[in-house]
């Protein structure tokens, strides 16, 4: 490092500058996210992709167009705050039905997930056509098969899904961490899920009983939940 002359420094700077230009041109030319691998193949060998992308992201940070990451790929997208100006030219998008949207979010948050598991979460059969529609939209894909009897197909989301909703990765799904922490993404009830022990339910009053008021319950020490053993 110490022997780096100002000349080679300048040369390296030029190489980096040219690499940034190339990456920029490739991203501009493409509507779809371009993988880091594809970009790297096009850049001069001695330039680190990470550095190039860091510079490029920085250069576009406050512009009308931003460089965004989608998984292991990169794309140029207009800045979200300018959407209202561009929307009028955009073709109307098909709206997802409520059922389809619910299936989509269940797949996104629970993936890899089988159809039976989706139905368990929603408590209703997935209508024919809903999964079909999501598969066709390109947001949902068949991922593989679960290694259980019957080998059911598992579903997951695609890169196009992440791209559409502006997510760099699945971890960025809104509320993902909290939901996981609360055990709400598990197929079965987690063991640490509090089993509510109803102290004495108001509904359980016999004919010969009067309703207890909160004050009564407090006096009797019944407001703190406790396990009753008959």
């Amino acid at each position: 490092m110490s022997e780096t002359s100002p000349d080679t420094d300048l040369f390296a700077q030029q190489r980096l500058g040219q690499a940034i230009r190339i990456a920029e041109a490739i991203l501009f030319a493409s509507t779809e996210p371009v993988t880091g691998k594809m970009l790297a193949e096009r850049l001069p060998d001695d330039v680190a992709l990470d550095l190039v992308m860091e510079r490029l992201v920085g250069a576009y940070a406050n512009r009308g167009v931003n460089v965004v990451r989608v998984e292991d790929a990169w794309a140029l997208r207009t800045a979200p705050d300018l959407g209202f100006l561009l929307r009028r030219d955009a073709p109307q998008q098909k709206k997802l039905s409520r059922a389809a949207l619910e299936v989509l979010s269940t797949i996104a948050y629970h993936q890899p997930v089988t159809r039976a598991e989706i139905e368990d979460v929603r408590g209703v059969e997935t209508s024919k056509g809903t999964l079909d529609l999501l598969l066709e939209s390109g947001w949902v894909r068949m991922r593989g098969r679960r290694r259980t009897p019957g080998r059911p197909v598992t579903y997951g989301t695609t890169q196009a899904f992440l791209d559409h909703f502006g997510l760099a990765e699945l971890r960025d799904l809104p509320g993902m961490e909290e939901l996981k922490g609360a055990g709400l993404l598990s197929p079965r009830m987690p063991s640490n899920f509090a089993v509510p022990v109803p102290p004495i339910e108001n509904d359980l009053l016999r004919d010969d009983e009067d309703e207890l008021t909160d004050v009564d319950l407090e006096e009797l020490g019944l407001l703190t939940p406790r396990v009753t053993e008959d």
Partner: protein
Amino acid sequence: MNSGHKDGEAAQPVSPEELWSDNKTQGLSEPELVVDVAGFEGPLDLLLHLARNQKVDLSQISVVALAEQYIGFIDRVRAMRLELAADYLVMAAWLAFLKSKLLVPKQRNEEGESGEELAAVLQFRLKRLEAMREAAARLINRDRLGRDVFARGAPEALELDRSVTFEASLYDLLAAYAVQRQRQAISNVQIAARGVWSLQDARDLLVRLVGHSGDWSALNGFLTQYLSDPSQRRSVLASSFAASLELIREGKLEVRQEGAFAPIYMRPGQRQLQLQPRPRLVGDVT
């Protein structure tokens, strides 16, 4: 510049009801829902709605009251002689069973899950469904490609990955296969109208009901009460009894009866009770 200020609209939270505005197309894609019970997406959705009316915190709801509200609702709908999707009735039967378990103190010799545990499972499922609802709403309100954020309008072909010259997705492939096989298969299959319950129907319902409880349950009563109109009770009873024998033979169900004419108790057997991807039940309950 001063017109079309729609960005504020996207930012503020939209209630789920407003979100799914085009329910008209839903009718086309979901022809199999017999009765759209006031726009609910299945029994769990209806339960969630009822629970929401009870309390803000789902862990504080009274499951007994919830069961009563649900059963009351179903009874009213049935009184109006509307057909209900089987799912709603299965849930009514199960809730009636759960309610009875919660009201009667636990018997000493009773095995398996208590009413409280079953209630907790129900609460978990309600919470989980609600969480997915909220997640869906948050998802759909993000800045979305093609609506709030846009890609390059005039892309250019790149000299990239020359090796792949053919494009097709797995979905394309499967759709092509299914379409042609379907085309070739004989297309006019007559579905006979059913006045009675088939063994398969009864079997599916038993699997779902007993699978729900995981414990000794006397389900017959609830089964006939909620799953049929009076004229069909015999057929339901006969079919479900025959179906239960079949399930026992396969080791998927166990039954117990204290004496003649006493309630028949059922619970899942050693082999896993699993619903095969099932044929639709809708339309069976008439």
